[in-house]
C-alpha cells in the first residue's frame, strides 16, 4: 500500500536511505543516523507523505541475535551495530504508515532526537533512554521515566540479567527534584 511512500522517499532523499524493506507488509526504511531529522521533517511536511501522527519509538539490542534457520552470517558480531532505534509513523490524511530505523553502534550510543518534530516522541525517547541507554541528541528533557534516577544500568539491554535486583537507595547528592528553583523565574 505505502510502497509509494518508500519510492517517494528514495526519489527525494536517495543519499539518506541505506535500504528499504516491506516484510509482513510493514514498510520500513533504514536511515543514516545523521540524516534522520532531515528525513523526518521531509516526511512530515511533504504533501505526498504527510506523516503527521507519531506512533511509537523503541530500540532493539542485537547483541544476542542468533536467528534459527538462517545462515550464521546473519548472527550479530562485533562488526555490526549493536542497537537499532525504530520510529513508527502514521499519516492521518493518507492513512499510510512507515517505520524508520536507525542503526546505532555500541561505542557511540547516540541518536538524534525527533521530539522537536513530533512532541509525542518526547516521552517515548525518554522511555528508550531509560530502558536501553540510547542518548538522544537535542532532546529537551532526557531523564529516566519509569525507573528512579539512582538506578544503575539499562534493564532492557540483553546483557542486563533478568534476575538482578536493585533496591532503591536514596541519594541526596543527586539533586533530583526537577521542580525547584528554575521555574520560579518563569513566573511573571
Amino acid at each position: 500500500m505505502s510502497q509509494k511512500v518508500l519510492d517517494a522517499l528514495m526519489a527525494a532523499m536517495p543519499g539518506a536511505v541505506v535500504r528499504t524493506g516491506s516484510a509482513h507488509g510493514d514498510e520500513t526504511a533504514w536511515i543514516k543516523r545523521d540524516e534522520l531529522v532531515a528525513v523526518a521533517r521531509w516526511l512530515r511536511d511533504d504533501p505526498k507523505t504527510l506523516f503527521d501522527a507519531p506512533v511509537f519509538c523503541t530500540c532493539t539490542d542485537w547483541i544476542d541475535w542468533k536467528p534459527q534457520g538462517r545462515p550464521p552470517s546473519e548472527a550479530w558480531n562485533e562488526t555490526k551495530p549493536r542497537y537499532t532505534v525504530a520510529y513508527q509513523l502514521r499519516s492521518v490524511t493518507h492513512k499510510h504508515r512507515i517505520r524508520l530505523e536507525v542503526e546505532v553502534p555500541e561505542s557511540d550510543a547516540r541518536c538524534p532526537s525527533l521530539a522537536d518534530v513530533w512532541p509525542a516522541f518526547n516521552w517515548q525517547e525518554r522511555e528508550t533512554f531509560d530502558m536501553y541507554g540510547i542518548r538522544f541528541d537535542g532532546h529537551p528533557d532526557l531523564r529516566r521515566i519509569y525507573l528512579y534516577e539512582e538506578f544503575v544500568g539499562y534493564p532492557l539491554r540483553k546483557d542486563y540479567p533478568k534476575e538482578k535486583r536493585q533496591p532503591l537507595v536514596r541519594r541526596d547528592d543527586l539533586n533530583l527534584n526537577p521542580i525547584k528553583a528554575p521555574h520560579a523565574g518563569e513566573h511573571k
Partner: protein
Amino acid sequence: MAADARTLKQLVLGRKDVQDLSDIEQELPPDLMTVNMGPSHPAMHGTVRIVLTVDGEKIIKGDVQPGYLHRCFEKEAEHATYTQVFPYTDRLNYVSPMINNCGWAMAVEKLMGLTTKIPRRAEYIRVIVSEMSRITDHLTCVGASAMELGAFTPFLYLLKSREWMYELLEKVSGARLTHSYVRVGGVSQDLPENFGPELTQVLDRTAEVMVECQDLLNNNKIFHDRMAGIGAITREDAIRTGCVGPIARAAGVDYDVRRDFPYSVYPELEFDVPLGTTGDCYDRYLIRLEELKQSMRILRQCLVQIPEGPIMSDDHRVALPPKAATYNTIESMIRHFKHIMDGVRVPAGEAYSFVEGGNGELGFFIVADGTGRPYKAYCRSPSFVHLSTAEMLFKDHFIADVVPIFGMINMIGGECDK
C-alpha cells in the same frame, strides 16, 4: 487599652489582626508553590505522581511521573514463550484484558503469516469478547470519572452493569478479570451454551443502565460545569502528540483502527465512528457513551452472523494435538510436550501489529528470532502516550480540574507503566 487587647490577642492566637498588617503582608505570598499529587491519591488511578507547580490555585506546570506500576512486561516477555505472554498481556490494561489478548495473538500471527487463516468462528468470538471488553473499559472510565466529581450513583449503576459483563466473560474464559482466553491461531475454548441469549439480555439491561446514567449526568449542572471546556485539545495538537482513540476522536480526528486498518471480521460489521468538536472532557465523555452504543450494535450483529465451525487454526505449528491423541500416541505426546515447553516457533523477522483498544491504538512490535520466545516484545500503550499530553492539558487550569482531566485521559496504570 485597645492596643493592649490586641497585643494580648496576638500572644494568645499567634497572629496579627488584619488592620495591623502592612500592605505587602496582606497580599498572598507571590512565590510559586510545589504540590505533590499522588502517587497515593484516590483520583490517580493506579499510581502516578504529579508534581504540580501552582500559582495560588492555577497550575503553571505539572510534571507527570509514571513508573510506580512498572512490572517489566517487555523483559518478562523476552523470557517467556509466546503463549506464556498472554497472562502478562491481561495485566497491561486490566480493564479490557481481552483486547490485549487479541492484540498479542494478532501480532504473533502476523509474523507467522497466519492472519488470514484463522477460523471465522474464532474471529467472531474474538470480536465479541473484544467489544465486551471495550464496554467494560468505557463503563469503568465514565463511572470512575463521575464518582471522582462527586456523583456516586452513576458509578454504582455502571459498575453493576460492568459486573454483568464480567460474569459473562467469566463463563467464557473461566476467570473474571485475567482471562488469558485467546491463543495464537484462535481461542482456547468455544463459547458456553446459551451464550447468545444471555449476552442479549445483558445488553438490554446495560442499555437501560446507560439511559439512567445519561439522565443523571448529561444535563447535570455540576457535571457539565466541571467537564465542559476543561482540558481541551485542538485537532492538530491531538495528532502531533500521538493521541488516538476517544481522546483524538473527541478532538475531531477521524481515526479508528477498526475502520481505517480493518482487521479480523470488522469489515463485515456495521458501526459508526463518533466524532467530537471541542476536544474537551465533556466531549470525551459523550464519545465514550456513543462508543458504548456502537459496541453493543456490533455485538448484536455478531450474535446473528457468527458461524459454526472450529475455533482453532489446524496449522500444526500453533494447534495442540487433540487430547485423546496426546494420551494414546507417542508422536502426539512428543508434539504436545515440544509445543508447551519450546513454545510456538515463529520465523525470524519483525512486525508491528495493532488493534483498537479501549483507549485507542494498542500495538505490539515483536522481533522474532526463530525460537519459541520473542527476541523483543514492545507494547505501544495508548495510556502512556495520552499521559504525556497531560502536562499540556493541565496548564492554566485549577488543581480541581486535574481530577476530570486525568479521569477522562483514562490512564490505566498497568498499561501505561507496562
